[in-house]
């Protein structure tokens, strides 16, 4: 190889030996870095590489990035002008950060999650998803690749506004912990919203439903962004709002963080399950994740109940769990138990295994049982813990048992509604295919009818 063509990309020549040859011949530091990047790139998710290449050339990214830079520049000028002449002596960091935060929130909380949705939805619309699904990539890799691409875009937007945000710190009035706190939680929210976008993209293939879902998602993202921005702007402007030195504050943040992580993982798993091969086992891992989330929820709420000695935590615990299992149960009941013989062989075969783990197998009936068993387990835990607290007189015991009635009633409602929903699904399955979306809609309709019935009955 002559030295004249060492400047060209090794990839462009199609000669892989060129990478090592270049390094040994020149021994250049930068060449070694390039080689390391090249080798690192080999290990990256192919979807991430492809999406990265596409994004850099796409009009959407170029326009959003340009607008972000332009808005940052305009706000820098305008903000300084508004602060003038106090900018020389009065702290103006909080004021400027509010503006930069609004500018950053729109692409990070709206554009990126919506792009993640469109990216996966477009693969299904254009038929490229089918080509992907027959490659060596697993459905999980496809989804995580899309998510990775979304994170990459977030980081690019963050880096674009980084100098501006550093500028707010220099203007004084805002500490670095608050800035990092805001940016970190916005990043977490963006990741979570992107996983939601990916799940929404897999719900249906029908074009008219896709259009409806995309509108709903966009509206939802705008509402979340508006609420998020408003909350954080008030947090920035209120100098007394943050309590970084309070242990309880960090405990609450840790609880929220665990739920964000577990939900992000679960959304990725749901999206991957939705796009996986029809005869694959789409359910067992998801059910295990539901169990993990139940454990997290019970753990944190019980901890807070004991720590703050407030019975209200029991009500929150059971109310949220009831809604959670009602929704999860509705989704699980919509599953079809189509499994390949190979997958069937991997299911528990022993008596003990079947007794304990059959409820993790895909299917409408096992789904209903799984949801109900989990909710009832939670109820038993609450009843045992609550009675123990009342008898032993700790954790804010008040000597009344109203909570017991509430817990029992809530659980009974969920069991009854899901039971009726399950019967309807069984009947409809005799007529044709019942999807998860339809099962959720049936259960939602039942709840609406159940809620409206007393109103009409009394009227």
């Amino acid at each position: 190889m002559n030295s004249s063509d060492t400047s060209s990309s090794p990839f462009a020549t199609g000669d892989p030996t060129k990478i090592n040859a270049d390094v040994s011949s020149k021994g250049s530091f930068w060449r070694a870095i390039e080689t390391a990047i090249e080798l690192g790139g080999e290990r990256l998710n192919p979807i991430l590489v492809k999406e990265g290449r596409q994004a850099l050339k796409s009009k959407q990214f170029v326009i959003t990035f340009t607008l972000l830079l332009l808005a940052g520049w305009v706000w820098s000028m305008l903000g300084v002008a508004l602060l003038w002449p106090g900018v020389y002596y009065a702290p103006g960091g909080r004021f400027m950060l509010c503006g930069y935060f609004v500018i950053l929130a729109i692409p990070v909380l709206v554009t990126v999650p919506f792009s993640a949705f469109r990216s996966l939805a477009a693969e299904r619309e254009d038929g490229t998803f089918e080509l992907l699904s027959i490659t060596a990539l697993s459905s999980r890799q496809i989804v995580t690749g899309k998510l990775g691409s979304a994170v990459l875009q977030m980081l690019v937007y963050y880096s674009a506004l980084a100098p501006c945000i550093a500028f707010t710190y220099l203007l004084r009035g805002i500490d670095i912990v608050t800035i990092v706190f805001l940016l970190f939680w916005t990043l977490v929210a963006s990741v979570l919203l992107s996983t939601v976008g990916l799940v929404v993209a897999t719900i249906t293939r029908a074009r008219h439903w896709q259009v409806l879902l995309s509108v709903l998602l966009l509206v939802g993202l705008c509402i979340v962004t508006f609420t998020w921005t408003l909350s954080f702007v008030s947090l920035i402007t209120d100098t007394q709002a943050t309590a970084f030195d309070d242990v309880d504050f960090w405990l609450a943040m840790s609880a929220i963080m665990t739920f964000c992580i577990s939900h992000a993982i679960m959304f990725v798993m749901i999206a991957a399950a939705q796009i996986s091969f029809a005869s694959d086992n789409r359910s067992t891992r998801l059910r295990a994740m539901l169990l993990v989330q139940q454990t997290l929820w019970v753990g944190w709420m019980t901890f807070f109940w004991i720590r703050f000695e407030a019975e209200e935590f029991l009500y929150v615990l059971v109310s949220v769990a009831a809604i959670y299992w009602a929704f999860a149960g509705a989704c699980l009941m919509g599953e079809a138990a189509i499994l390949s013989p190979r997958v069937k062989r991997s299911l528990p075969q022993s008596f003990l295994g079947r007794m304990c783990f059959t409820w993790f197998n895909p299917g409408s009936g096992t789904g209903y049982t799984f949801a109900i068993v989990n909710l009832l387990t939670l109820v038993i835990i609450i009843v045992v813990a609550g009675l123990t607290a009342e008898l032993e007189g700790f954790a804010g015991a008040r000597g009344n048992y109203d909570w017991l009635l509430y817990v029992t009633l809530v659980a009974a409602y969920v069991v009854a509604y899901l039971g009726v929903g399950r019967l309807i699904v069984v009947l409809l399955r005799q007529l044709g295919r019942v999807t998860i979306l339809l099962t959720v809609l049936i259960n939602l309709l039942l709840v609406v009818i159940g809620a409206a019935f007393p109103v009409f009955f009394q009227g």
Partner: protein
Amino acid sequence: MPGQPVIDMRRLHRFFGATRAVSDISFEVMKGEVFGYIGPNGAGKTTSMRILATLDIPTYGDALVDGFSVINDPDRVRRRLGFMPDYFGTYADVNCREYLDFFARAYGLRGRERHQALSHVMGFTKLDGLAEKPIRGLSKGMKQRLCLGRSMIHDPSVLILDEPAAGLDPRARIELRQMIRELADNGKTILVSSHILTELAEMCDRVGIIEKGELLAVGTVAEIQRGQVTHCQIRSRVIANVPAFASWLEERDDVENIHVDGQLVRFSQIGDMPEQAGLLREMILANFAVAEFGIEQRSLEDAFMHVTRGVVQ
């Protein structure tokens, strides 16, 4: 035929509600064979190809690729199979090299192996000169080449090509046909569907005719042409006494559809070669001055038209 079949369709069924898209299809394709899949629109070609490509699952039956079931071992099947659907499936904002590079990565090719696969495929499909060209700027023929390249980037032993020549100009068709033949000569097993029957006849070792989800005939092109002949079209020229000859033919039970055009008489006879030989002998014994007697060769298109009934689901 010796050896284990590379593609083995076993009583494949696929129902969509009341519609029987594929109904009891069974056939085998051996290593290095080009198998043509012929049928009218809505016959079930694409459905059965999609099942073979592990994009759909059969209602009953199974399909095996290299001995692996599409239901039980879809991952192993995918490693052995390249699928080119009847749509392009390309991405915006990527060029030819990036497109192929992405699929090479997606099939798990790394480093040197990927670079070699890329240069091989780009060379084979003659896309070298267009490596940096955006896909959206490619002609239909070039896109088809690119898609063929994508389907063979991981060097699969089986290629499934759904209507690869649709919409191509004659030159592009010929080039595509040459590429398919070259792939088969290199040991690839190819299942190809097409509406252009003359092309299939030229490139396929065997063909299968499918209609309304059912496989009506399987065999070499010659076998199909010959095997389906129950009414043989005959062309005969008698240099005198043509009306008498026509009357003589009309009296026979095994002859029908007689058309007289001057000295030329066309008719169809029920039967195969021995019956034709017997008829010729009788014509001569009856003192007709037969100057010409021949079977009008049926094309694959004729056989297709004869076998199928034009029924679409």
